């Protein structure tokens, strides 16, 4: 039984931040983080990036000291990731904003469209429908954040939340402005267009929800083992035959349907940006799957069946 010594250096200045004596060989990085935290109370574990190489990737909590390519005196590097915020908190803030911001425009708060239009309502039914759909979408997201999602990372840097909120809240305000504007023009093809859009919207929301549930079921019991998601009895999950990230596919579908429903260019632009962002995420996820699983189904594309 050999006990390890662990020295932790600052990744930039290389000064020794701490020296841990008599560390068990089967200690996990998580435990080392906790030990470091005891010495530096302000640097809670989520803020610590511990790595083997100053410019390398952060080590995961589950890694075991003796399995790392280090001698019995291990040198690790520390980087402060800055204040962190939990994913759940981030999502709650990100999604509550658009929900209420939309209402400011829907109910035509005085400062939005001028005093003459304050608290008036639109003569077009589609405007009410759009409010219901938009609110439904974000309420659904909030419910999923609290009850369904299981996040693999605990936290993200605090400054991300400013960036993310600006984006979500800003766009929500921008598109709500036009949809609820007194000079709003309803869709050119009238009821047909709106009804089609509503049906598509509901199907995509149901699909998106089904996928989230399916993904969450994969990680029962907080197990950190990753598994390939497969189609279940739920027909909405059959998209898994063709796509790695059907949740993104359905999400894009939702926004396309909302664009059709409102026939509003800002909504279309938001949809486009969502599509681009989700394609990037989907490709990333897809590559990760391909790397991790040798028997990954070859028919699957990242986000659009057969195409993308």
């Amino acid at each position: 039984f050999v006990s390890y010594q662990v020295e932790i250096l600052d990744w930039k200045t290389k000064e020794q931040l701490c020296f841990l004596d008599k560390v068990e060989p089967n200690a996990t990085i998580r435990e080392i983080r906790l030990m470091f935290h005891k010495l530096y109370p302000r640097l809670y574990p989520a803020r610590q990036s511990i790595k083997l190489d100053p410019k390398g990737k952060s080590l995961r909590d589950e890694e075991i000291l003796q399995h790392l390519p280090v001698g019995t005196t291990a040198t690790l590097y520390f980087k402060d990731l800055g204040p962190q915020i939990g994913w759940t908190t981030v999502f709650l803030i990100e999604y509550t904003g658009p929900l209420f911001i939309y209402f400011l425009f829907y109910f035509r708060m005085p400062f939005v469209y001028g005093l003459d239009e304050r608290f008036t309502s639109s003569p077009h039914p589609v405007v009410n429908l759009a409010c219901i759909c938009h609110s439904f979408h974000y309420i659904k997201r909030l419910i999923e954040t609290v009850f369904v999602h299981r996040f693999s990372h605990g936290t993200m840097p605090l400054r991300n939340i400013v960036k993310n909120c600006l984006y979500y809240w800003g766009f929500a305000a921008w598109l709500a402005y036009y949809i609820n504007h007194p000079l709003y023009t309803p869709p050119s093809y009238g009821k047909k267009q709106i009804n089609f859009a509503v049906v598509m919207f509901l199907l995509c929301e149901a699909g998106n929800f089904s996928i989230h549930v399916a993904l969450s079921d994969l990680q029962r019991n907080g197990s950190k083992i990753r598994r390939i998601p497969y189609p279940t009895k739920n027909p909405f999950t059959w998209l898994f035959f063709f796509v790695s990230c059907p949740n993104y596919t359905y999400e894009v579908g939702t926004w396309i349907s909302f664009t059709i429903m409102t026939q509003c260019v800002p909504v279309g632009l938001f949809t486009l940006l969502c599509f681009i962002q989700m394609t990037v995420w989907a490709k990333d996820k897809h590559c990760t799957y391909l790397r991790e699983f040798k028997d990954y189904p070859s028919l699957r594309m990242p986000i659009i069946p057969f195409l993308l």
Partner: protein
Amino acid sequence: MAAGEAAVGGRLRGDMAAGGSSGSRADNGYGSQPPRRRRGPGALATAYLVIYNVVMTAGWLVIAVGLVRAYLAKGSYHSLYYSIEKPLKFFQTGALLEILHCAFGIVPSSVVLTAFQVMSRVFLTWAVTHSVKEVQSEDSVLLFVVAWTITEIIRYSFYTFSLLNHLPYLIKWARYTLFIVLYPMGVTGELLTIYAALPFVRQSGLYSISLPNKYNFSFDYYTFLILVMISYIPIFPQLYFHMLHQRRKVLSHTEEHKKSE
């Protein structure tokens, strides 16, 4: 072709003056960076890039000569824009190809950064100077055209020489020094031109759309231009100081290299 890669790469936004360094890498033409996974341009791509950079150098030289000739012929420096309008439009727009170069990986620069830079130039050329005819006789136009011309001649010849692995120190020095004057000069010219265009845009409602319309969209070009002008405030100092930083790195590295020879 590491030197080629290192030098051809890296531009900074509004590469207005002979600055534009290689982003986060020491653009010293000596390829002293960690090994990159991306494969560099092959022989065919290098040949194409040499041709491209030579053509662009020549193009901007044409513009420079055009300006001088027009000045001599007219006897004054006012309204010289008209004499170089066509080559300016052609060669500045041609720079859009550089976005593709990054996208295809033959130039190791960020696509987004390059796109942003080129688009801002193209925006000024077409959406402001070309579209608002009344500003074409403004002196501010001459200010940025001169700044761009000198910058681009140096920048493209820098790339050409780097690709051929034979970079004269003078060109490198010029690229990393003249920007100190040219960059503010160009920015001033651009801002004054946009400012001059404002009343005409307001009057004519250029590129603007108002409610109601079936796309449920509105856009006020006048406000947009004002926002563009405001955006210079955070962007310009950042880039300027970054280029100064790059200058220190690049030129001092060359000094060391020379001393060690």
